């Protein structure tokens, strides 16, 4: 790996050179500085971003190129490292020696080809992604994740941050401790959402043969399904209630039909029952509503 590391704003330089497997690598200290880098790519790039704090905006463009703009606004020096190895581009921020514990806020703007793989992590701030398709993974602690017109295999993990996914397609697995998880107009056939204390909102149609597993342990879950939806539903809240507005028929695909035992359980089919929808909660309220 070839690496240029510069510590202190122009005060001293350290150069360390090792293997030559990497085409380009850069690290420079940032203190109220902006860094812009361009990386040519030929096919679907893999972009790995590790940020400590700040806003991350990612949009797609038609160019076979990845552009990274980093704007460090924090009060503490950080190293912003970028590295390209073939189609993989790594970007990371790290506190310079002695700088840990300070304000490391760095905002990123990335322009990427529409078909890209993203692995994005920022502990706090926000992540906003538009019009990118591929394997997309987002991890945050306190940052919110906002996805629009994205697709592929989406994985979202947050601790406190919420997720809003608008017009997303493909498959999604999202998990949070106390963040809300919301899907608007999804075109997704595999949806797995789990939050411990946050709320879940699914606003859209269930696709034929899709599988939808929604679980909020103590938060509430609202489903607003469209007229075109056809699904088998099982909604269970162990110590909460289920409010159902759907015209359910006995489940056509079950051999045995369980009676409605309490206000916390609803089961049945809408239409031909093409999709499978399971909604579970420990103590939250589940609402099944028509759009």
């Amino acid at each position, binding site marked *: 790996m070839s690496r240029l590391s510069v510590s202190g704003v122009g005060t001293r330089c350290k150069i360390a050179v090792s293997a030559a497997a990497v085409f380009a690598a850069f690290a420079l200290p940032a203190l109220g500085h902006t860094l812009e880098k361009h990386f040519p790519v030929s096919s679907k790039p893999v972009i790995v971003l590790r940020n400590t704090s700040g806003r991350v905006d990612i949009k797609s463009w038609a160019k076979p190129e990845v552009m990274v703009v980093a704007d460090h606004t924090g009060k503490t020096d950080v190293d912003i490292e970028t590295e390209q190895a073939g189609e993989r581009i790594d970007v990371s921020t790290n506190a310079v020696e002695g700088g840990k*514990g300070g304000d490391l806020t760095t905002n990123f703007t990335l322009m990427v080809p529409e078909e890209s793989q993203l692995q994005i992590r920022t502990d706090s701030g926000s992540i906003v992604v538009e019009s990118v398709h591929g394997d997309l993974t987002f991890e945050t602690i*306190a940052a919110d994740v906002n996805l629009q017109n994205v697709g592929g295999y989406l994985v979202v993990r947050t601790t406190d941050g919420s997720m809003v996914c608008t017009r997303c397609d493909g498959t999604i697995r999202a*998990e949070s401790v106390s963040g809300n998880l919301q899907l608007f107009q999804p075109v997704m056939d595999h949806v797995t959402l789990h939050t411990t204390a946050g709320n879940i909102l699914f606003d859209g149609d269930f696709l034929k043969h899709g599988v939808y597993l929604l679980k909020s342990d103590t938060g509430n879950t609202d489903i607003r399904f469209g007229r075109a939806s056809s699904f088998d539903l099982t909604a269970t809240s162990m110590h909460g209630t289920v409010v159902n507005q759907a015209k359910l028929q006995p489940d056509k695909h079950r051999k045995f039909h369980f009676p409605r035992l309490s206000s916390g359980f609803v089961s049945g089919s809408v239409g031909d029952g093409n999709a499978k929808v399971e909604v579970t909660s420990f103590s939250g309220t589940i609402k099944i509503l028509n759009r």
Partner: protein
Amino acid sequence: MHCTEFELTFGDAGRAGLPAAAAQHLSECAACRNLAADIDIIRSAARELAIEPQAAPARVWTNLRAQLRAEGIIREQAPVSSGWDSVLAWLKRPYVAGAYAAMALLAIAVTWQPSNGIEATESASLAGTQMSATQRNLDAMEKAFTSGAAQSTSIVDIALRKNLSVVDNFIAVCEKAVKQEPHNEIARQYLYGAYQQKAELLNTAMEHSLTGEE
């Protein structure tokens, strides 16, 4: 001998057949002593269930693996084999190994589907024992985190502390439900899921303490 090497050796040989190098490492490494003690507990509890570790049904390992993967506890790409090697493969971090080991046994107790009433009682009893062990391990992890981040006012540390509190509250509610209905498998699964989430959250917290803002 390194910790990882010890884990594999101990998993294969047990205490009785431990090579000299491994025995020396065990005497010098507190983390591995804790790990060995946890594995002893698992083996002992497995014997109480009258099963050999290698004889655990494939569905137990499959369910356990799927559950841990679904919860994000394990993320490695390599396929997970059956038996104790699978468990040991997850224990890459001695610091959190105790909690994960205790959770592994708890998961067995939760996913085990007894064939008669006596086994059901044993299973519920085992789950109760393991809940205590899991809680102790998680508490130790939490102390390690809170001792370092208790005074921090960063957004992230505040969020982590808040969410630990959220998960702790949920664990308390689940434990109450399990105590009231020891045979309620759904309640036990919620409790197990809450433990998993706490372990994952503490893991995240410790990673952040190494790399993030304070």
